[in-house]
């Protein structure tokens, strides 16, 4: 018990901060993922084959390649790519991106591929009549999207988005390889200095379980809210 006490002797406070970091990375990654989904879902549903091809290759490649490989690409290649772009604009100094941004971006891109698929599925399963009705009523495009399609889409998408959230939350453990101090990295440090890996990794597992459990509770309430009237 002393091992996880707060203060100088235990690792309680460090692990608590690390858990907050995990949440921060997961939430940021999820939001970046939504951003990507916002761009790629319309491309997927577009009439133009070339746009479909772009969106399809994004989701296929990202969902077919291990997360760890994507993280290594960004970890080792991220600052190189930014420096390359900076050099075009005449900036020649060394640029280092911090681990948080690298981690959240790489997990976000992965999460975005899953979100894209979820949104595509949700929009496609909305009844055709709804689109036609909007057209007949002569609704303006943004009203039609935000007031009619979006609420229905969210209701259909939330159960699947909760899966994406779970995947994203668990994927954050992988960015410990980049040195960002989240739950996994902190447990690794604690296990190394106390020589008690069994305890600390089990505790890390418990922390993840608590996080998934709490987020499920939250999502269930959200789901209820969006299925009013069904």
């Amino acid at each position, binding site marked *: 018990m002393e091992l996880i006490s707060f203060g100088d002797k235990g690792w309680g406070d460090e692990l608590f901060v690390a858990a907050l970091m995990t949440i921060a990375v997961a939430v940021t990654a999820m939001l970046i993922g939504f951003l990507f989904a916002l761009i790629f879902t319309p491309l997927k549903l577009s009439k133009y084959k070339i746009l479909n091809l772009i969106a399809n290759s994004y989701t296929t490649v990202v969902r*077919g390649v*291990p997360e760890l490989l994507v993280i290594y690409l960004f970890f080792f290649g991220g600052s190189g790519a930014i420096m390359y772009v900076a050099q075009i604009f005449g900036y020649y100094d060394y640029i280092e991106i911090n681990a948080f941004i690298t981690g959240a971006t790489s997990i976000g891109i992965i999460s975005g591929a899953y979100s894209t698929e979820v949104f595509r599925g949700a929009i496609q399963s909305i009844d055709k009549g709804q689109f036609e009705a909007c057209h007949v009523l002569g609704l303006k495009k943004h009203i039609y999207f935000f007031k009619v399609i979006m609420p229905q889409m969210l209701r259909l998408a939330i159960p699947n988005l909760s899966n994406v959230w*779970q995947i994203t939350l668990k994927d954050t453990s992988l960015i410990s*390889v980049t040195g960002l101090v989240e739950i*996994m990295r902190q447990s690794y440090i604690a296990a190394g200095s106390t020589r008690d*890996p069994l305890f600390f990794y089990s505790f890390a597992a418990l922390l*993840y*379980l608590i996080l998934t459990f709490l987020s499920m509770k939250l999502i269930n309430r959200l789901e209820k809210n969006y299925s009013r009237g069904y």
Partner: protein
Amino acid sequence: MDLELIITSFPKLLSATVITLKLLSASLFFGLFLGLFFAILRLNKNKLISGFAYGYSYVFRGTPLLVQIFIIYFGLGQIEYLRTTFLWVILKEPYWCAIIAFSLNTGAYTSEILRSAFETIKPGIIEAGRSLGLNKVFIFTKIQIPIAIKQSLPAYGNEIILMLKGTSLASTVTLMDITGVAKFIISTTFRPVEVFIIAGSIYLFITFLVHNLIKYLEKKYRYQ
């Protein structure tokens, strides 16, 4: 683009593919049995037994695979007693630790897939078997299991692909699978893009094969 690096590292990554495929097939093999076993426990009427199976799948699906590997590889070695038993022969090898972790992980997902497949079987089918005078074991092995396998094929195909991606974590416990070798090449040459393209295409190629295999099986086992 460094074409020479692509040409020289391709054979290295290709030979690492063997380890990835070995890890994948071994863990899918053990995971399938674990999954079937726990799916049957889940359907048990005894609350304690089904609760145990639920707890197993909840824990392994709710925690990252990385934690599971670390607990098994770094954690279990800490127990003095284990070091004296024959289990230590297995647990000191990162290869077997990875397989144990992967099997337990995929077993949890497989048990969920099979459970939902068993639950979607119409009761009429089982009742028909019973009224024909078939015994319980026969109904289970000859009626329920074949239907469940057919039902769960698409979901299991996804699980195979998830597991293929999961095997990349073996590189964190010193195994040189595709990702392990890729990381080694990247950290010695600092050419992440080239290596990512080759390693990524190998993974995508395996995904493609799995996808088509499942499609073929789905077609084969469709209701006539």
